[in-house]
């Protein structure tokens, strides 16, 4: 099943400097691709570089080396970025984890949702910006009465939906969602995840979905990449990865995945791992179609 590649990150590296001598390598020659209409999941522990990868894709962080191609445009090259600014700024949108800090508390919901359209001077399809906002609100399952409310008057799930409506009003090709459901109740999580599924099925949206809830990733994503210290250690179609994990780090992660099954949970042992020995050099090898595992040079999987 080959389909068109929407985004391709090639060997991106980025380090954060803590002081003159100390630095943290957030991304280490990371390469991945997102196909059109696909939900690509990145999983890994905190500090593995998931969020930095998302920020690089959104041009919020400039990788120190490597290239990211979006629709064939190298977004890390300022010249190409400048020439395609409008395409890049309207067709990629991001949803952040914390809806409280990503929405301006002094703006009404209607203005928050319409703000990106105003900035991009987009003519509202439905007459006015307000009508456009109302349409998007309805789309994400919020009542119109919230249009004139402030974010503080909404619950966490409602705020997250406002953030999603704001991203959707630009009709993006690629949605980058950095832990979009982590702070929400289980039943609200289900609503948001269903909405993502719907957007993918009906409108062909592509997603970069970052989460630490592995059962959510398994349910939602088509392909999943496992990040360890800024490197991919395993990448496979979602079901294949969860049923047949190969890399020891993936196995350790999956062993910690909570299951609503008390007897099985109590009898299940966590697989310990030592990131220092695991962070292997090696190369990514294909063990079965579409399933790549990082293995030490020479060895076979």
């Amino acid at each position: 099943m080959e389909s068109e590649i929407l985004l391709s990150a090639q060997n991106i590296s980025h380090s954060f400097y803590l002081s003159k001598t100390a630095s943290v390598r957030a991304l280490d020659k990371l390469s991945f691709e997102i196909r059109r209409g696909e939900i690509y999941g990145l999983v890994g522990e905190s500090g593995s570089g998931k969020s930095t990868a998302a920020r690089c894709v959104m041009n919020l962080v400039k990788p120190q080396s490597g290239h990211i191609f979006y629709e064939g445009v190298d977004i890390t090259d300022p010249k190409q970025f400048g020439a395609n600014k409008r395409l890049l700024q309207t067709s990629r949108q991001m949803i952040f984890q914390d809806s409280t800090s990503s929405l301006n508390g002094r703006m009404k919901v209607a203005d928050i949702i319409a703000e990106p359209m105003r900035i991009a001077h987009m003519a509202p399809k439905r007459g006015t910006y307000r009508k456009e906002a109302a349409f998007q609100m309805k789309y994400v399952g919020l009542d119109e009465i919230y249009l004139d409310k402030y974010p503080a008057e909404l619950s966490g799930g409602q705020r997250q939906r406002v953030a999603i409506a704001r991203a959707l009003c630009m009709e993006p090709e690629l949605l980058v969602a950095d832990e979009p459901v982590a702070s929400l109740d289980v039943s609200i999580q289900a609503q948001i995840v269903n909405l993502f599924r719907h957007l993918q099925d009906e409108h062909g949206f592509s997603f970069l979905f970052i989460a630490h809830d592995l059962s959510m990733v398994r349910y939602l994503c088509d392909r999943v990449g496992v990040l360890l210290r800024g490197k991919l250690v395993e990448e496979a179609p979602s079901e294949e990865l969860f049923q047949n994990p190969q890399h020891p780090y993936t196995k350790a992660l999956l062993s910690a995945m909570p299951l609503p099954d008390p007897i099985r949970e109590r009898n299940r042992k966590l697989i310990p791992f030592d990131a220092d020995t695991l962070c292997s050099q090696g190369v990514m090898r294909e063990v079965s179609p579409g399933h790549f595992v990082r293995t030490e040079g020479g060895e076979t999987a």
Partner: protein
Amino acid sequence: MEHLLALQNLHVSYHTPRGTVQAVRGVDLTLDSGEVLAVVGESGCGKSALLKAIMRLLPENASVTGRIVVNGTDIAPYPEKQLQKLRGSLFSMVFQDPMTALNPSMTIGSQIAEAIVVHEPKISKEALRARVLELMELVEIDRPMERMKLYPHNFSGGMRQRAVMAIALAARAKILLADEPTTALDVTIQAQILDLLRNLQKKLHTATILVSHDLGVVARAADRVAVMYAGKIVEIGTAEEVYYDPRHPYTWALLRALPALATGGDALYTIPGMPPTLIDPPKGDAFACRNEYALAIDYEKEPPLLRVTDTHYAATWLLDPRAPRITPPIGVRRHGI
């Protein structure tokens, strides 16, 4: 048999300018030493208010009625001075975010020591140091000798939560109240902290109330599970009973919303509507308007906790012999062993 902790008809109300919010509306609970009781529910169902009522950490506009019986003595009427002696020695609390629970300008060792000194002011320097090391080992912090000199910002999230638990256990508390202790943590760390809770309970025989919004997370640690909705317990039973044989429609809904139990390409189940406001709770069963299995009587009369087995109770009229038989839409299948 006398229980370590028994809550009897506990009510917590917040008096606000908009009216009285009935956060907890008549909860009866028992807790024995050496067991982990998980309290699960959506945000706003009163699970945190319940813990804070036991600790009496509520703001001034809150009032608590009912009995909080510890080893046969009702501590509800205790004045603040007496309660202060109980906090830490009888029960202590672990909060969701370990970073805000710790003092960023004190070393981990001195924060643990502080909690010990409050309860044992006359402890010698050597004994204090030994006790700090012992506590750090108890919560499985490696190399405690070096780590006690570090500050919270040097610690990872999981380590911080371990340090918070060491502080909570400093005065040998018999009851540990944990309010979403793993929500801010990674999956791997979350499982480690849940295992730590279990190990502590085995080693020290403490009783734990573990509050969470996710039924998936608590399965690893809980002996018994109580599901809360709109300030009431709607189902309570052993973990096996609640997961494998849930009886209340709300428990069904919570389980069906979990992606781990989703089958194939189906959309996840979502609970229609919103939880009711607790300023003016609806007549009858508070869950009725969101419940596809609601019976006519649910809108009229609130169901009491009906018995399923001696340990398993659910507040739904579906358990009444006159109710129609309904096959639960979900129930976790039992796997081996």
